[in-house]
């Protein structure tokens, strides 16, 4: 920052983060990650159970996974902070999540994968990436996760003869009205984003600033959908898969009465310093660029909010109604109404303003942060392409535009309408996670016009290696001391039961900002578990170890073998070389 410019006063929690990063000579970043729910069907299986079976059958001895069920405390899903944001009876939320305590779920419904990803049953089969530090990392480790799911699908076919079809989309029918012969009522499942944000950013900032951003970013991240849902009038095509399913501005719900701003914020970190912003509006993205922009731009807005530089300029008059309106505005002609300004703006005008805002912020506050500056450069380029309204030019850069390009052309060729089963089949087949079979992977992924963010070699490595973040510390600790691990949430806390002394120890890595350190890890993991628990709180990892009186969950083990994609069926131990 040049002299004469105003000094930026950062809030204390931001100062802690920045201090860690300056000491590490790294640029500022926002810890983040994705939770993806998959649609799954299996030949010969009731579709309602296909996803559940896919997760639980991994515990089948022939599949080579050890029982890796981890105990999960459902009360950790809710914190005092989120309860105070909106009045919801906590008891009903607890009941909804009590299946996490069941032995069957713990033994087979929740798996820790080698790269620190979590794969589990939560109504739909769900995959969480390990904790990442920037949008590049998110794309690499999310793609590695999607490869995992596809490789497991192939294993099921080879080993158990089960033919799964897996979709990374966000809508399906709940049931078929067999009498009328028509489909009734679609359901939705999600692709959630998570961002660490300072606890000092208030709800009064978070809700208006981010609810508007989640709506207005739709042209960048929408996966596109044929039709409409939840009693909305029919539309041939809209940009967002999820928009029709949102009913209110804010709240903690995720499966009904969905809010544009979800107030679940259990930090999985020091709750006094950090909040986890839990975002449920986004679609699952096949295009890597969409995922990159989604995480990169939202992270910039997170940093702006932490620095007190995000205001209510973009606050929409009615974000819930605007979400549906924006989703249908594929020509970008509609005018939007704002709370704090009289002038109405089109969607593209809003995106241009956001781009300028993000760029100016980075130039002033983080001029050397090339990771996020790259995101904004690409943002400007995509806006320019959106302005052309040329779907062919957006091919491979935007899921909704690519999908519309394909479906429109195919329907014209076949003389079909968007109301046909043919159009709906194309919509879903675009999202087929079969890396050799789906429309995206065969027709789009390797096209010259498609923007790739993650190198294939990086994705291969990410299938067996956690990112150099807190997730690597958690994963390596669990694998190293697995005989004594009683439970873990895989993000923050590990509970150990030391049988010889009958002691229960809780280890918490309280900061989502810690970096993996190979040398430190070598020293710490050469210790016995009691020595490790003595040493780790003083190792500069923001870790605390506490005693606990009551042991709730007594059974646990986890995988002691690593996945080798070239193997014939036996999972083998792999070394973990590490290179940045």
């Amino acid at each position, binding site marked *: 920052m040049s002299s004469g410019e*105003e*000094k*930026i*006063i950062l809030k204390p929690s931001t100062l802690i983060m920045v201090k860690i990063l300056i000491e590490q000579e790294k640029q500022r970043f926002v810890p983040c990650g994705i939770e993806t729910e998959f*649609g*799954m*069907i299996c030949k010969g299986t009731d*579709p*309602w159970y296909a996803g559940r079976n896919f997760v639980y059958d991994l515990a089948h001895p022939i599949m080579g996974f050890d029982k890796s069920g981890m105990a999960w405390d459902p009360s950790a899903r809710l914190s005092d902070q989120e309860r105070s944001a909106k009045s919801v009876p906590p008891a009903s939320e607890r009941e909804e999540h009590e299946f996490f305590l069941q032995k069957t779920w713990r033994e087979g419904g929740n798996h820790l994968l080698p790269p620190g990803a979590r794969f589990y049953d939560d*109504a*739909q089969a*769900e995959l969480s990436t390990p904790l990442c530090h920037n949008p590049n990392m998110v794309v690499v480790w999310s793609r590695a996760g999607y490869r995992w799911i596809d490789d497991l699908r192939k294993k099921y076919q080879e080993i158990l003869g089960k033919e799964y079809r897996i979709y990374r989309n966000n809508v*399906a*029918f*709940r049931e*078929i009205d067999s009498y009328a012969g028509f*489909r009734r009522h679609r*359901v*939705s*499942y999600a692709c959630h984003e998570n961002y660490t944000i300072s606890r000092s950013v*208030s709800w009064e*900032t978070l809700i208006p600033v981010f609810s508007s951003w989640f709506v207005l970013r739709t042209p960048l991240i929408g996966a596109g959908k044929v039709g409409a849902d939840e009693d909305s009038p029919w539309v041939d095509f809209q940009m967002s898969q999820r928009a029709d399913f949102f009913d209110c501005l804010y709240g903690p719900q995720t499966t009904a009465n969905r809010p544009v701003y979800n107030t679940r914020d259990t930090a999985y970190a020091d709750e006094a310093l950090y909040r986890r912003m839990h975002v*449920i509006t986004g679609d699952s993205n096949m295009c890597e*660029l969409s995922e990159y922009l989604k995480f990169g731009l939202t992270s910039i807005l997170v940093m*702006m909010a932490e620095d*007190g*530089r*995000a*205001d209510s*300029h973009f606050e929409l008059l009615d974000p819930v109604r605007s979400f549906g309106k924006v989703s249908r505005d594929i020509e970008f002609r509609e005018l939007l109404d704002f709370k704090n300004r009289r002038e109405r703006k089109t969607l593209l005008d809003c995106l241009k*303003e*956001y781009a*300028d805002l993000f*760029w100016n*912020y980075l*130039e002033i506050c983080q001029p050397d942060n090339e990771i996020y500056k790259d995101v904004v*450069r690409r943002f*400007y*380029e*995509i806006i320019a*392409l959106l302005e052309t309204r*040329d779907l*062919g*030019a957006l091919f*491979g*850069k935007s899921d909704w535009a690519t999908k519309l*390009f394909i479906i429109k052309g*195919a329907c014209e*060729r076949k003389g079909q309408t968007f109301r046909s089963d*043919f159009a709906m*089949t194309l919509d*879903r*087949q675009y999202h087929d996670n079969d890396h050799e*079979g*789906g*429309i995206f992977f*065969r*027709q789009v992924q390797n096209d*010259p016009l498609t*923007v790739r963010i993650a190198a294939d070699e990086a994705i291969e490595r990410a299938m067996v290696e956690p990112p150099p973040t807190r997730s690597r510390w958690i994963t390596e600790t669990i694998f190293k001391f697995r005989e004594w691990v009683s439970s873990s949430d895989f993000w923050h806390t590990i509970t150990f039961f030391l049988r010889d002394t009958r002691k229960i120890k809780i280890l918490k890595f309280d900061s989502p900002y810690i970096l993996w350190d190979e040398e430190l890890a070598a020293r710490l993991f050469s210790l016995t578990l009691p020595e490790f628990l003595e040493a780790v709180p003083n190792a500069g990892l923001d870790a605390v170890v506490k005693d606990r009186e009551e042991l709730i969950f007594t059974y646990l083990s986890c995988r002691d073998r690593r996945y080798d994609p070239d193997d014939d069926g036996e999972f083998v131990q792999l070394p973990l070389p590490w290179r940045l």
Partner: protein
Amino acid sequence: MSQKQVRPGAKKEEPTQPREHKKKPEAAPSKDGGAAAATVPKGSKTKEDLDKLLDEVDDILEENAEEFVRTYVQRGGE
């Protein structure tokens, strides 16, 4: 709405609203010092590209779209 804190005595900062398009990113210079290189590939799909793509899409679609659609039901999630 919170404003960025300022040093005592400094002028109060105006709200952080986007101004006119100033300070947009300069495009990254190319290695030979010539025209800037875009990060996103230029070009658009032609009709021939589309026809070829649709020929391939035909191969991977289920024969009976109605049956395919009927069988895809899910519980729903978050």
